């Protein structure tokens, strides 16, 4: 039995919907926050700390009867850049999506500058993504300071 099949047994297959795989285990709940999966009535199965060759420990999320717009799904690239998105129709993968970090990140990340106005007034945060070599930085539209992905805090409402 291969690893993949093993995982499929641990996390039940879905008939129609979206499977988010290869999420770093530490960021699984950040992905749940970003996609607002705690709200809504869809059936969701979540697997955490599953074995993964590339990530060590990974998370997986299967959401029944839910299909995401690219714009929405790209938001998780900040915390799960290697995630794979499989669209399932009638138990089969009909489409695989590759995610990419969006150029602008609105309302999901907290600015790490404690003096930033967005941390004191009810204002949606807004960042421009800057890729410098291997590092990705989020430049705050308001305070003009950079937040790096290691210090990323997701705004959960």
């Amino acid at each position, binding site marked *: 039995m291969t690893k993949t099949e093993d995982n499929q047994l641990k996390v039940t297959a879905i008939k129609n919907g979206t499977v988010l795989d290869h999420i770093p285990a530490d960021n699984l709940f950040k992905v749940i926050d970003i996609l607002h999966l705690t709200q809504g009535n869809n059936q969701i199965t979540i697997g955490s700390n599953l074995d993964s060759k590339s990530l060590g420990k990974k998370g997986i999320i299967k959401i029944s009867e839910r299909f995401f717009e690219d714009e929405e799904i790209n938001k998780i690239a900040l915390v799960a850049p290697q995630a794979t998105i499989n669209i399932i129709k009638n138990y089969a993968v009909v489409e695989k999506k590759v995610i990419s970090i969006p150029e602008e990140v609105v309302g999901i990340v907290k600015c790490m500058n404690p*003096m930033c106005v967005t941390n004191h007034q009810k204002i949606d945060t807004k960042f421009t993504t800057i890729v410098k070599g291997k590092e990705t930085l989020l430049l705050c539209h308001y305070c003009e300071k950079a937040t790096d992905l290691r210090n990323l805090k997701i705004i959960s409402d």
Partner: protein
Amino acid sequence: MPKSLISIHDFTKDEILHILDVAAEFEKNKSQKILDGKVVACIFFEPSTRTRLSFETASNRLGARVIGFSDTGNTSITKGETLKDTIKMVSNYVDIIVMRHPLEGAARYASEVASVPVVNAGDGANQHPSQTLLDLYTIKQTQNRLTDLTINMVGDLKYGRTVHSLLQAMSHFSPNYIFTAPDELKMPVEYKSFLEEKGIKYTETSQLTEHIDNTDILYMTRVQQERFSDPIEYEKVKDIYRLDAKMLTNVRSNMKILHPLPRINEIATNVDDTPYAYYFKQAENGMYVRMAIIAYLLGYK
């Protein structure tokens, strides 16, 4: 959205040069009532002397009237009014808003909420673009040009917002930089890599006297106590540089000393009477530059 001035990046090189030209015109003719009947709001959520007084004087010299507050003590903000509501309300009353706020990004946010132009008169440690423009104006006035000058920045280069904005604005004019700072207060890497990308040369030193004789503009700054979380760190560096008239014997004849003020101990008073001291004139220039900013944003110049 009307055009605002929040960050020095909001103005192109051409706009910067235009503001400097208009300011020169105002310096020749100090009172031009082109804004008769207009109202300027100067709302200061944090104390200031020079900036507030020069914006208010600038407005008056243009013939506009000024309303506003200089601290939040007797305003509805103490009742918990949000910044958004304050700005919405003020922008219904006036033609332009000048604001200072302790939070970084507050002015950018205000410009998105307001129906009139907003001028950022300082948002915490972030931006203070009218200071940058008056620095450029003063540099041009003293050297008759902006290009190919050696600018020696001294003091707190780590936290000082004026030096960071000036560094970026001057980068349009192929400068040569000298950064004089103690190890604790060196120019941050992000600004140095910005210069490297642009191919602009810089030299770093911790000795004030090392490059002082090869400098066109000596830009002194105060080490600001409020930026330090550790009082011992502040004590170590607060009086690290003290410019004295004795140090000026071999400087270039065109060399001028600038300082955003207030100064504490970093420039001895015996420097004031040397031909190199220019910081008081620099503060005066702030008024002409602020007249130019207001007139330009309201479409009069």
